[in-house]
Structures are given as structure tokens and as C-alpha cells.
């Protein structure tokens, strides 16, 4: 299994997910579930294959984290569909996953086998996988929020949509918290301190604080939807900076221990 074979798994997955999303719209629940799950399994087979052939978890490069992101979006979509039965959620998750798959097909990053010693830890896989799941769920919440913020006024946003966004944010924030804390425990073993205010950590803290403001504000002013959605979207911007934006930030150049080097 190499990166070249990705397209032969990704495209069938996307087709299966799109078909699943279509049947969800048509209220053919069983068909929608079967197709979506099959798509997820096909995609999972590729991840398993590349994991085995790389002889390390595929979690190091940006391309590899995008791989997990496009895997978790349909998973999160499916969970939401099962739990709250929104028939449009599978279309959302399919489109988002497709975007990340396209990036990986047209602009894959270097996928070599090497993994520096600092990343060789049992904490590595759970830390990144939990973060990617959280990013996927929060991404879905943001897209829904953005749609309603642009297209509708406060009054036409239904209670149930807001309830969905809140639930996604709660799940996403819970995973964000767990991912961050697992990272802290790992950092103690790898670097000697659980929190060093390294640029990646600073932006992870900022992201987390953003979602705390959202959840608290929703409890405090449940009627003021517009402000809440703005906070939601700004928090997702912070998340982007934390995920890959710091690679371009002048203040973070060459000082991050998250790009571990030996000097």
C-alpha cells in the first residue's frame, strides 16, 4: 500500500458516502446507513494498509492527519445521523471529507517512513486521533453555524439546529480536552514538563478557551444566537492556526518543540 493507491480507495468511499447521503435525503435509512458504513470501511482499509506498510502509525505529516480528518468526518456525520436523525448531515460530512481527500490527492505531502524518537510513544496515536476526531466534529458544527449565520436571521434558526450545534460542540470540546490532557501527560514523559507554552500549546490553549466561551455563553444567553455563532466561527479560526497556521506564523518560526529536532 502506498500513497499512489489512495485514489482507488478514496473515490469509491466518496461515491458510497454520496449515495448514502442521497438515500438519507430520501428517508431510506437502512440503505443510507449501509452505504455510509461500507464507505467508512473501505477508507479504514486504506488507513490500515498504509499503517502496515509504513511500519508506524500514519499520524506524522500534515497529509496523514488530513487522512484521519477525512475518515472521521463521515464517522461524526453518521453518529449525528443516528443520534438526531438530521437527513442533511451526511451530505455535509461527505462534502467536507471530499475536500480533504482532494487536497490529499492533488497535494500530498511527503510520506516517508521515518518517525523521530520523540514521537515513538504509546501516547502518540491516541493524542492525534482524538484531536482529529474533535477537529472533525467541530468542523461540522462550524459549517452548519456558518450556513445559518450567513443565510438566516436569528428568528429562523430553529431550536433543533441550535441544539445540534451545541451537542456537536460539547462532543468536540470534550475530545479537545481529552486530546490536550493526553498531550500534557505525554509531554511530561517526552520533554520533562507537561506544559511549556510552546507555540502549538499556546494556540491549543487559545482554541480551548474559545470553545469554553461558546459553551458558557450558550448557557448564559440562549436566545442570542448570532453572537454565539460568531464565537463558534472565531474559535474554529483559532483551531486552524493551532493545526497548521503556526507553520506560517512568524512568532512561531523555529521555536516549536512540536517540530522536534535534536539541537
Amino acid at each position: 500500500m502506498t500513497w499512489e493507491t489512495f485514489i482507488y480507495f478514496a473515490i469509491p468511499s466518496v461515491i458510497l458516502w454520496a449515495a448514502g447521503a442521497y438515500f438519507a435525503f430520501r428517508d431510506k435509512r437502512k440503505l443510507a446507513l449501509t452505504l455510509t458504513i461500507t464507505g467508512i470501511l473501505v477508507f479504514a482499509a486504506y488507513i490500515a494498509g498504509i499503517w502496515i506498510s509504513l511500519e508506524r502509525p500514519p499520524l506524522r505529516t500534515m497529509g496523514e492527519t488530513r487522512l484521519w480528518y477525512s475518515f472521521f468526518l463521515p464517522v461524526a456525520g453518521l453518529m449525528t445521523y443516528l443520534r438526531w436523525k438530521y437527513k442533511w448531515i451526511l451530505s455535509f460530512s461527505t462534502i467536507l471529507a471530499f475536500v480533504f481527500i482532494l487536497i490529499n490527492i492533488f497535494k500530498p505531502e511527503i510520506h516517508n517512513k521515518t518517525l523521530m524518537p520523540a514521537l515513538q510513544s504509546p501516547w502518540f496515536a491516541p493524542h492525534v486521533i482524538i484531536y482529529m476526531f474533535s477537529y472533525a466534529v467541530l468542523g461540522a458544527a462550524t459549517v452548519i453555524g456558518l450556513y445559518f449565520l450567513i443565510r438566516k436571521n436569528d428568528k429562523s434558526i430553529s431550536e433543533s439546529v441550535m441544539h445540534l450545534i451545541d451537542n456537536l460542540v460539547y462532543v468536540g470540546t470534550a475530545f479537545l480536552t481529552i486530546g490536550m490532557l493526553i498531550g500534557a501527560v505525554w509531554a511530561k514523559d517526552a520533554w520533562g514538563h507537561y506544559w511549556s507554552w510552546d507555540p502549538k500549546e499556546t494556540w491549543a490553549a487559545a482554541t480551548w478557551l474559545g470553545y469554553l466561551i461558546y459553551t458558557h455563553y450558550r448557557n448564559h444567553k440562549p436566545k442570542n444566537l448570532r453572537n454565539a455563532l460568531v464565537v463558534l466561527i472565531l474559535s474554529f479560526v483559532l483551531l486552524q492556526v493551532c493545526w497548521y497556521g503556526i507553520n506560517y506564523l512568524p512568532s512561531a518560526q523555529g521555536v516549536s518543540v512540536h517540530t522536534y529536532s535534536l539541537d
Partner: protein
Amino acid sequence: MAEFFKKRFFMWKHPWGYKEGFTISAGLVLTGILLQLTTGAVNTDFLQFPVNVFLGGLYIIFIVVLSFISNKNTSIRWLSGMTASITSISAFLLLVLIMGLTRQSGVHDNSGILGVLGFKNMLSSWSFVLVFIYMMSVLALVTLRRLKHFRWKKDIPFLLNHLGLFITLFAAVLGNADMHRYQMVVGSENPEWRATEDSGKIIEMDLAIELNDFTIDEYPPKLMLIDNHSGKTLPEKQPVTLLIEKAPTAGSLLDWDVSISNVLENAAPVVGRDSVHFVEFHSEGAAAAVYVTAANRKSGKQAAGWVSSGSFLFPYHALKLDEKVSIVMPDREPKRFASDVNVFTKDGKNIHSVIEVNKPLKVNGWKIYQISYDERMGKWSNISKFELVKDPWIGWVYAGIILMISGAIGLFVTGKTAYENKGEND
């Protein structure tokens, strides 16, 4: 109408809202700036045991007393409410954002407006410290308020999250000055007792490390292309690479079909009259070398020769493919490095162990981390660099972290419904 104007333009009339909340936060930032300008940065070194325990105890008593008088005082009661929470988190977030956008210098750097305000060294700036203490106090008061009306089951995720966060932050702050980190460089001759502080000061430890053996396992050699004129990799910053796991092997790098017929893990160059070739060499300083044959798919150009990463003893050796491009072997990446050590303590222990990255050794309250080696020597390094860390408050931090993880799981399981507030807010 009069009510409207009152609400719009007059502050500090209860109930307080966001305006008052943000004003308090802004006041703290401003006070911090004034303190920064008059007294300089905050120094928390004095917070060592037992001062930290004493002040921490006083702080807890102070917060508990505040919590009790909050029944009678509306302003203090406000501090345990939603508006105070949201505005204090927002103020803290703002400072974290400034920190994320400003290169943190570590040493006291007062240049520029951000330096004068202390924001180039955010963690010891007065504004950050004041807003942090304010946010932590609001967190404590919120937690105590909920504890006073605690409802089983319903309030458990709330308590785990808030109490867990408070314990983590509190222990992290109080434990900071009690944490010691020293570096120790150990050679192969004698056990080493001395370590150095960040400041360069040398300290005699109550434990010694003897290095029996230092080993590096490396990833297989790899090849990449560079531009002959600029020396930069192709494509720049994201070079294509070919990992050589076995010989013979073949692959491609951009337009070049590459085949490798011979791989020598440990080799030395032999300089001939008009060429260099490599032979097996099993002593200190040996470098990896491979014999490469390359052909360009477009131009049909061909080239063959040895490529080596070099070592501290031998220079690297590239193969020029054409006028523009050469093929090189970058320094090999370490897969694992580890030190086989004996650790002696002054109380008579003698522990034999292997220390490697991600696997520190725990001795007498110290954790010994493998951090580096002599990089110039690479795999032939005969020294090993360790970091020794003592962090007596770590147990409290872990306790807080475990509470928070349990709380997050609770949040995930119960979702929003179980977490809604019960009208306690302003």
C-alpha cells in the same frame, strides 16, 4: 425611557453585566501595565516551599471566606456568576492570543512597545499574572457556589471539570518554583555528579550517572536531489526522497530513474586518481555509502557513482547528474537512541537501567531524561546528554488532569442537556 438610559449609560448598578465584566478585566490589564512600567516583570522564584504552601493556604481561606460572604454581598456574588466567568476567560484568551502572535523571548526583552508592556515575556508580565489569578478565583468561586447546592448525578460532570481545572492550575502555579531542571553531560570515562542549571551554574547532585554504553539505531539511508547552484533540495522545502532498505533496489526521484546496486552501512572513501570509491570500514567514523546508477527519462542523460552521507571523519560525497542537479544522501535520521547507565545515589543505591527518549528513569524523586548526544559525532557519539527533573507537585497536577478527563467523558456521555445551568446567573 429613563430605564433605557440608565441601562445604556450607567455602570456599576446591579445587576452587573458584560460591560462591568469587561471593565474589570481591562482594569486588571491596565493595572498590570502600570506595575510592569514601575516595578518590572514578575519574579515568582520566591514561591518556593514552604512559601508556596503558606500563600496557597491563605489564598484558599480567602476564597472560602469570599464565597461565604457572597450571600450578603451582590458584587462578590457576581464573581461566581456566568458574566464574570465569560469576561475573565475572554480577557485571558486575549492575552494568550497576544502571546501566540508575539515571539516569546524567554529572557527579559524590553525592546519595542510590546517589550515595554512585558508581552514579549508574557508569563512573567503583570497583566497576565493578574488576569490569570482573577480567572482562577472566579473559577474557584463558581465551583464553591455549585458545591453549596450540590445535586448528585446532575452536577458531577460540572464539578469534575471545574474542580479538576482549578486543581491543575493551582498546583501548576504553586509547584512552578519548586520544579528543578538540570542538564548533565556524561562521558564514557567516569561517573558524573555535576549538572548545570539553565543559567550555566554548576551544581553537585545527590546522584551520579555512569555511562556504560550509548547506542543509536538509524533509519536506512535515503537519497534526494539538490540544485547544484543554490544547494537547495528539490522541490524546495519538500524534497522527494528514496529510502534504501535493501540492495539492489530501484525507484525514481522526479525525472530520474535511480537504481542502487550496492549499499555499505559502514564505509570509508578511497580516493583514486580521477574518482572516489567506497570500501567496507568498520571503525569509528564510518559512514553509509551507496552505488547509484541514474537515467533521466526526458533527456536520456545517465550518470553513475558513489553517494555518501559522510561522517565527522569523512566529507559527504554527492553524485553530479547533470549541470543542474546532484544526488545526495542527507544525514541519517536516528530511529532510537539510548543510554545504558548505572545510577548511584548518595543514600547508597546502584541502579542499572537503559534510558531512552520517552522512557525516563525515576530515581529518588528525580526523573532522568535522555535528551541528546554529540551530534557532530552522530552515531559515533561517546557522550550522552540527560535532563534531570524534580517536580514534587506533579501528583496534584495529575489528580486535576484525571478529574478533567473524567469530566470530559461525562460531558461527552450526557451531552448538553445534563449540563444546562439552573438559573443561577445574573
